[in-house]
């Protein structure tokens, strides 16, 4: 453990604490001078916590050394382009590395940590919901300055946002690891920015989770004012955590876009890029531009709480519906940011296990772009009941239903790819097929929420909860597991255990269907979202009990995955070659992947997915060591 305490992560966390204390101390001192109250229920006052949290996040970054090179550049000192990682083994992942493969794994590890924390919150409040009446989150219970139902609200809200941040880190993990390999590049366009984007997510996660200990908040992950303008201090930490995490998403997207535009292999034209690269472009387009709006919406509520600027306070002439417009302008495209990489993984892996070309490659590529671009103009379908301009609800219904078209194109091409294929089902393929079916359930339960007349009844019921759990599991969780099982050998040179993988799949998928269909069922009966308790007369106690059991079953299957994941790193079955015999360039070199990816750059000579056609190679390595792509 000695290596941990000298690692960048430890130094960063240490400096985050110092920075928070310094920032909070500064504000407390100034408040004392101005004769304002210096302390509050959670020792520091709210403004002190906000500035402290902000300076703490910045201190983490400087303390961890990830901004070291930039500071040198500002002082006019040039730095070598390639940092040789002088850490080995697990220490590599707790220190600053510029290698996109290490950063990809770091992203994935933090995503898995956050998905477990978010899942744990879900299990807690799922246990409470197992039966009507409050069992253990009762009103006279007290924890972190919150009673039972308040704690329920905080856990429910944090379950939402922690899972969302874990998804953003999860897709960043896959994209960062795989895209440079698919393009034939040595690394991302801006390696230091890539490391910065990862390391900024760690203090953001700390800030986000600290809201639980600072009085929590009860607004759900959306943080609507006027309720969010009156919630405890924890609300500010939630806003700050999401605000900082947003930077990671923006800068990561920028890096991906520049890498794809500037660093493709010779001969890789737009229509010969692997399909996952198209999905990464589409997702980055949204993340680069729309994320600012959630940052701005949260910043406005923070300033309303800190300085009394009444943006969303009707008494001061503000307009709460404006917050919803700003918030959803990001948050709906954000759900397309979550699923596009997952759908890209499905399209990438399907041909490998079906030994057949991907049907309609160009149509799938354009559909990713279609989903991303149309996704920008649909946000108001979250606000049909919010009193927005009634006439405009119908055009938003049209644009929302329109998004089903590119999604449909993807489905038809998957089915056509599967048609008459020689289908083999190792674990990655199981998760791909599982992802397709689950995403189909999500897709089918979407349109009833898009049409105004039905949405007025379904809004804020468990039907919506069932819908988006289907789309998020189908669009991210299943493909995320598929990607890990598929590229694990490329990263470690060892295979994850097949039987454990199959147990994980066959335990998770059925219980997941029970969970989401159960949610939709009780939603139609009248179960509302975000409530700690429900009316026994609804008669859905047994349904809730079944949901809780399936929730625990999913948790168990994920534990099995973790066991399989960590055990296989050291003593998984050796798998150094092209074990899925994929045509993709990264599998043409032995695993684990060398630090500088391709010693000899390759040239694209064929179509990426011509499986089954004899001697139609996709890539050919250029023998004479021409200038490597840097």
């Amino acid at each position: 453990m000695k290596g941990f305490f000298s690692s960048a992560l430890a130094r960063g966390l240490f400096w985050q604490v110092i920075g928070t204390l310094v920032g909070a101390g500064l504000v407390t001192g100034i408040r004392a001078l101005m004769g304002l109250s210096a302390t509050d229920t959670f020792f520091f006052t709210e403004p002190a916590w906000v500035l402290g949290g902000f300076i703490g996040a910045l201190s983490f970054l400087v303390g961890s050394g990830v901004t070291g090179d930039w500071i040198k550049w500002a002082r006019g000192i040039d730095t070598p382009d390639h940092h040789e990682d002088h850490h080995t083994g697990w220490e590599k992942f707790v220190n600053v590395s510029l290698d996109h493969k290490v950063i990809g794994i770091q992203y994935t590890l933090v995503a898995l940590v956050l998905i477990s924390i978010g899942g744990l919150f879900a299990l807690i409040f799922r246990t409470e919901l197992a039966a009507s009446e409050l069992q253990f989150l009762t009103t006279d219970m007290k924890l972190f300055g919150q009673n039972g139902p308040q704690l329920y609200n905080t856990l429910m809200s944090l379950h939402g946002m922690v899972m969302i941040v874990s998804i953003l880190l999860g897709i960043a993990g896959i994209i960062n690891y795989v895209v440079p390999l698919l393009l034939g590049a040595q690394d991302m366009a801006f390696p230091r920015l890539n490391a910065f984007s990862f390391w900024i997510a760690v203090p953001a996660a700390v800030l986000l989770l600290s809201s639980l200990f600072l009085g929590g908040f009860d607004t759900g992950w959306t943080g609507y004012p006027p309720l969010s303008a009156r919630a405890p201090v924890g609300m500010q930490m939630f806003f700050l955590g999401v605000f900082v995490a947003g930077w990671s998403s923006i800068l990561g997207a920028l890096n991906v876009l520049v890498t794809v535009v500037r660093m493709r292999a010779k001969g890789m034209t737009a229509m010969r890029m692997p399909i996952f690269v198209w999905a990464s472009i589409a997702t980055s387009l949204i993340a680069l531009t729309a994320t600012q709006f959630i940052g701005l919406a949260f910043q406005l509520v923070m300033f309303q709480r800190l300085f009394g600027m009444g943006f969303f306070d009707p008494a001061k002439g503000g307009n709460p519906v404006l917050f919803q417009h700003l918030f959803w302008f990001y948050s709906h495209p954000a759900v397309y940011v979550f699923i596009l990489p997952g759908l890209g993984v499905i399209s990438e892996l399907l041909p490998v296990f079906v030994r057949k070309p991907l049907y309609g490659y160009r149509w799938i590529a354009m559909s990713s772009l279609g989903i991303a671009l149309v996704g920008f103009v649909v946000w108001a379908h979250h606000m049909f009941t919010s009193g927005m301009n009634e006439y405009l609800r119908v055009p938003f219904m049209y644009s929302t239903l329109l998004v089903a078209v590119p999604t449909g194109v993807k489905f038809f091409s998957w089915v056509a790819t599967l048609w008459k294929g020689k289908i083999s089902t190792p674990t990655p393929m199981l998760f791909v097929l599982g992802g397709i079916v689950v995403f189909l359930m999500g897709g089918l339960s979407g349109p009833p929420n898009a049409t105004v007349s039905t949405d007025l009844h379904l809004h804020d019921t468990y039907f919506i909860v069932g819908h988006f759990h289907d789309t998020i599991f189908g669009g991210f969780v299943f493909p995320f597991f598929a990607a890990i099982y598929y590229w694990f050998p490329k990263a470690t040179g060892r295979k994850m255990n097949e039987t454990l993988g199959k147990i994980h799949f066959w335990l998770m998928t059925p219980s997941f269907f029970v969970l989401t269909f159960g949610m939709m069922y009780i939603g139609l009966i009248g179960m509302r979202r975000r409530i700690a308790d429900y009316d026994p007369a609804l008669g859905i106690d047994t349904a809730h009990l079944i949901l809780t059991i399936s929730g625990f079953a999913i948790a168990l299957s994920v534990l099995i995955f973790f066991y399989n994941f960590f055990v296989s790193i050291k003593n998984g079955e050796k798998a150094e070659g092209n074990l899925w015999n994929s045509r993709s360039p990264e599998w043409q070199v032995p695993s684990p992947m060398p630090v500088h990816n391709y010693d000899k750059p390759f040239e694209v000579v064929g179509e990426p997915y011509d499986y089954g056609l004899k001697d139609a190679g996709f890539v050919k390595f250029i023998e004479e060591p021409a200038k490597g792509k840097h």
Partner: protein
Amino acid sequence: MAHSQDKSSALGQGVVIFVYLTVLTIIEYFVAVSFNATSLLIVVAIIKAALVMYYYMHIYKLNEADHGDEHSYAYKTGTNRLGLWLFLLSDGFVFAGLLVMRANLLGLTRPHLNQFLGLAVTAVLLISSFYMNRGETAMKYGDVKGFMRNTIITFVLGLGFLLGVVLVEWRMAAHEGLVASFGNPASGPLGGVFYMMTGMHAFHVFTGLIFLAVVWNNARKGVYTAEQHWGVEAAAVYWHFVDLVWIFFYPALYLIGTAVQ
């Protein structure tokens, strides 16, 4: 548009563009004071933005074909330039969000501000943009001394703008009842919108000043040459971007709509 002119005609072009921008700003000011034409103010702002983006920020360099050797400085500069412009696009969305907020909360009303001070700070920022262009053009032709002189002038004018807004403007606005917490509800969110928009812009001016200082210091140490001066171009384009934002914020806060107490 011949980009490979000699130095004097490049500087001359900077002057012409500055004259166009000044004339348009004067038109903008008198139009708003005499009769209320929101659409005209928006058109003038867009024209000024297009001029700055094409001539001062030379956006056309984005698709200059430099697919030569991947390790060359030129290719890396091309990659950096694309990265910078994507960052400016994403930062632009923040300011677009602020304009949406202003439109939604204030509609056709605006805070009651001192028009003379508004025009003064706008002029200062425009002139600083002009000297930034001269500085960057000087560096493009290897005149490091010329670059450093012009950058100092840009820095001083930029600092003047920052102090003008934060110290003078905010204090005068506070006296005229535009306090951030606007005690009486009747005054509506004027204070919040005003302080948030000018505050976010002032923060970007502040980071622009730091950027200029760092680049000036590196130039002093001889880091940049006529062929390799990406840092200078980055600082210049970022500074013009900050001016570009003010080209939209100035009418939105000072000119469009009728002043409300």
